[in-house]
C-alpha cells in the first residue's frame, strides 16, 4: 500500500458547532483546530477514532451516512454482522428475531464477522499471525493501525498482516457463492460497522477491503431498521438458519477476546489514549517479553464504538451471555465446507505491508524541519504554557508548531494579548502572520 490519503467519515456541522474546544482537547492526534469559531479536522492527521464525536456536547460531529439501498444493486446481498450486534438488544430480542429482521431488510445471506476466526482456526488448526517484528500488534482495529502509520511508523513491521476476521468472513462468503456458479458482479458484501474507522477503511481506495467488501453500513442505522421491523410485531413466520460461529470467536471483539487465542504472553489495551501511552513504551523496545498486543481505540473494545446505540457494559454482558449458548466447535459439515475452499482462502489471507504517514513531521526536508523546530522551541518559550485552547490549537506547543508551519499567527494567543499588548505586537513582527492558503488572494494591509 502506498502513502495515500485516508478516507474520512467524520465531518463537522458548522451550524451546530460552537467552537467549544472539547473535541480539540480530546483528539489523540491533535488533528482539530478551531478556526473562525468552528472546529476543523486535518484529514492528514485524523485516524477516524471517533473520540471527537463522543466528546462533542452539541452533536456537531457527524458520521457519513450509509444508504441501505446500495445493497439492492446486487442480486446476492451478504451481511457481515459483528457479533456485538446481538449485544445492542435486550434479552427480549432473540438471535432468531435479529436474523429474521436482517433478512427482512433485504439480505439474502448472513454471516458473523467473527466467523472469520473459525475459518482461520479450521484452516490452520490455530490462529496464525504474520509480522516482521516482535511483539505482534493486532490489526483488528483500523483506528489503531492508522495511529501507528501516523505516530509510530517504526512499529509498522510489528502489525499483524493476516486479514481481519470480517475480511476473511467476507472472502469466504463470496467464495462459497462463486463456487455455486454465481457471478462475482452480482454479489454484494456489506459490513455492518460499529465505528467510524472500520467504515472509513472500507471507503478508502486501495485498502485491504477493496473488492472484497462492497460497502459499509453504519451499525446504528441497521439497528434502527431492525427495531422498526420488530416494532411492527411480525407474526412469527419462517425461522432462518443461524449463521455458524463458536463461542470463543463470538467474544473476539471484546477485551481479551482476541488475545485469548494467541500464543505466549499477551496484553490487551483499550481506549486510544491508553493505547498511545503504551505504544510509546513499545516503540522504545524495552518489552521484549511480550508476544502479542491486542489494542483497541474504543473504551471496552468494539462495544464502545461510536455507532453502537446501547451502553457498552450492558452490550458486553449480553454478548458473553449469548456466547455461553454457542458451541465450542464448529459442526463437522461446516468445517468440511471451509476446507473445500481452503486452496483459494490460503492464498488470500495476508494483506500488503502498510506504509507510514509522515504528516506529523514539521517538514519533509531535514534542514527545513530543523529550522522549524528551532522556531517552535523559541515560540513555545514565550507562550504562557497553560494550554487554554482559546487560540484554537489544543496546546501552546501545538500553536507554536502551527506558527512555525505558517498556518497561524501568534496573534491568536489571547493570554499574551491581555498580559502585554505592546510586547504582543513586537512578537507578531518577529514570528510573522499566518501564511494565507495558496488559493486565496493576499489582502492589502
Amino acid at each position, binding site marked *: 500500500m502506498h502513502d495515500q490519503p485516508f478516507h474520512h467519515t467524520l465531518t463537522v456541522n458548522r451550524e451546530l458547532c460552537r467552537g467549544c474546544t472539547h473535541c480539540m482537547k480530546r483528539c489523540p492526534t491533535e488533528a482539530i483546530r478551531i478556526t473562525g469559531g468552528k472546529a476543523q479536522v486535518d484529514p492528514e492527521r485524523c485516524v477516524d477514532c471517533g473520540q471527537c464525536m463522543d466528546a462533542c456536547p452539541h452533536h456537531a460531529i457527524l458520521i457519513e451516512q450509509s444508504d441501505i439501498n446500495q445493497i439492492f444493486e446486487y442480486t446476492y446481498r451478504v451481511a457481515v454482522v459483528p457479533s456485538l450486534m446481538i449485544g445492542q438488544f435486550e434479552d427480549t430480542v432473540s438471535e432468531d428475531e435479529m436474523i429474521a429482521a436482517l433478512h427482512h431488510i433485504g439480505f439474502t445471506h448472513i454471516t458473523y464477522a467473527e466467523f472469520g476466526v473459525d475459518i482461520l482456526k479450521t484452516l490452520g488448526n490455530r490462529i496464525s499471525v504474520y509480522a516482521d517484528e516482535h511483539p505482534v500488534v493486532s490489526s483488528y482495529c483500523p483506528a489503531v493501525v492508522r495511529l501507528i502509520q501516523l*505516530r509510530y*511508523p*517504526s512499529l509498522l513491521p510489528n502489525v499483524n498482516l493476516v486479514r481481519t476476521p470480517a475480511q476473511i468472513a467476507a472472502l469466504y462468503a463470496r467464495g462459497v457463492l462463486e463456487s455455486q456458479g454465481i457471478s462475482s458482479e452480482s454479489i454484494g458484501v456489506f459490513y455492518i460497522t460499529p465505528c467510524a474507522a472500520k467504515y472509513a477503511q472500507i471507503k478508502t481506495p486501495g485498502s485491504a477491503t477493496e473488492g472484497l467488501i462492497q460497502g459499509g453500513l453504519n451499525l446504528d442505522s441497521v439497528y434502527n431498521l431492525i427495531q422498526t421491523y420488530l416494532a411492527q410485531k411480525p407474526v412469527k413466520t419462517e425461522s432462518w438458519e443461524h449463521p455458524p460461529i463458536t463461542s470463543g470467536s463470538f467474544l473476539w471483539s471484546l477485551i481479551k477476546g482476541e488475545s485469548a487465542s494467541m500464543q505466549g504472553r499477551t496484553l490487551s489495551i483499550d481506549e486510544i489514549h491508553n493505547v498511545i501511552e503504551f505504544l*510509546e513504551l513499545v*516503540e*522504545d*523496545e*524495552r518489552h521484549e517479553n511480550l508476544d502479542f498486543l491486542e489494542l483497541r481505540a474504543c473504551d471496552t473494545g468494539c462495544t464502545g464504538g461510536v455507532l453502537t446505540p446501547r451502553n457498552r457494559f450492558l452490550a458486553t454482558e449480553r454478548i458473553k451471555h449469548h456466547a455461553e449458548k454457542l458451541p465450542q466447535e464448529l459442526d463437522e459439515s461446516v468445517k468440511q465446507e471451509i476446507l473445500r475452499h481452503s486452496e483459494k482462502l490460503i492464498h488470500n489471507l495476508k494483506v500488503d505491508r502498510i506504509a*507510514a504517514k*509522515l504528516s*506529523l*513531521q*514539521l*517538514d*519533509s*526536508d*531535514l*534542514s527545513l*524541519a*530543523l529550522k522549524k*523546530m*528551532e522556531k517552535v*522551541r523559541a515560540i513555545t518559550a514565550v507562550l504562557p504554557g497553560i494550554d487554554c485552547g482559546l487560540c484554537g490549537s489544543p496546546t501552546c506547543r501545538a500553536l507554536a508548531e502551527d506558527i512555525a508551519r505558517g498556518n497561524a499567527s501568534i496573534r491568536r494567543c489571547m493570554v499574551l494579548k491581555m498580559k502585554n499588548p505592546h510586547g504582543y505586537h513586537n512578537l507578531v513582527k518577529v514570528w510573522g502572520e499566518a501564511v494565507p492558503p495558496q488559493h486565496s488572494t493576499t489582502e492589502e494591509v
Partner: protein
Amino acid sequence: MQVSYEVKAGDFSRAGHVSSTVKGLMKQLAISPVLIKRIIVALYEAEVNVVAHSYGGTIACTIEPDTVAIEVRDTGPGIPDLELAMTEGYSTATPEVREMGFGAGMGLSNIRKNADTLHIDTGADQPTVITMQFSLLHEVNHA
C-alpha cells in the same frame, strides 16, 4: 539545534525520560524510524548509566542536517577499566539495581553497536564523557 537535559543519579523512576523526549523531537524531523531507533537505544543506555553508576550529569544532543551528536557527561566516579566495562555481560551494578531490571552489562556494548562513532573519556575518580555520533546522510551498516 541543541537540546540538553540534566540526569539525576539514582532516579531510576525517571530513567528513560530524556531518551523519550529526544525521540519525540526526532520523530517530528525527517529522520528515518530505523535511525531513530538506533539513536534512542544508544541514548537510553547512556542515560541509564548516568542514573545507575554516576553522581549525576548532563546529556546534550546536537541535531544537524547531516549528523546527530550526543554528549553524555557525568561528574564521576569514572570507569577504572574501560576495556572490561565494554565487555558484554560485565556489570558493576548492585543486586538492588539488577532487581529493577537494569545492570545486565549490555550498556556500553549496546552503545558501541548502535553509534557510528563512539568516544569515551574516563578513568578512576574522573568524570566520564561519552560522545557518540550518528550520520544522517547514509545508513552505516550495523550488524
